[in-house]
């Protein structure tokens, strides 16, 4: 519920800015749609529209493949600061 409060106003952030394409190398932009444990946040929490959620999903999966963001965050492999590279 705490996370739900964070995204109270539900509107598509990307529609407002008229984003047509989401780059998988732009980690600061992807961070919005990621949970603390680097899971993809559902549409009902972020408010993304379906079209943009699909773009975000593809971008996140590409970023994962290239080791830009982790697949999982667990206790075995502790990453101190995963967003170290993000400015």
């Amino acid at each position, binding site marked *: 519920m705490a996370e739900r409060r964070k995204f109270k106003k539900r509107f598509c952030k990307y529609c407002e800015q008229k984003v047509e*394409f989401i780059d998988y*190398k732009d980690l600061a932009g992807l961070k919005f749609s990621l949970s603390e444990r680097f899971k993809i946040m559902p549409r009902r929490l972020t408010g993304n529209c379906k079209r943009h959620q699909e773009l975000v999903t593809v971008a996140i999966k*590409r970023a994962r*493949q*290239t*080791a830009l963001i*982790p697949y999982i965050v667990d206790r075995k*492999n502790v*990453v101190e600061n995963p967003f170290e*590279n993000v400015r």
Partner: protein
Amino acid sequence: MTCYETLFVVKPTLTDEETAAQIAKIKEIVATNGGELLATNDMGMRKLAYQVEKNDRGYYTVLLYKAEGTLINELERNLKINEDVIKFLTVKYMKQKELTQFNKLVEAANKKAASVVETAPVAEAAPVAEETAPAATSTEA
């Protein structure tokens, strides 16, 4: 001709010259197979989000180029063989919206490269500047 983007990660254990040589080698593959290299985005040494072949860091490079589809087979075959390349990803830009973004990426990468070349002789030592200069010339060729 289709627009492609290839990102690859070179092992962190190599020296600067060896890394530059690896990148030059891959650029050469693009050039010899009829590809037109538009821009190179050097993301530099980064920490990996997870271990890849027991490496914690990697040297990221992004190539933006126009080429025929057959080049991709050849390029990916070489990247797979190359033991110094630990990760790679090729993305195709097809739709009009994607292409406009592609052109933006090319512009941004070229701007970044230009600013690096300009600032290098001032801020950093001479050998670093010498390294960046041949890289810049190869993108034009």
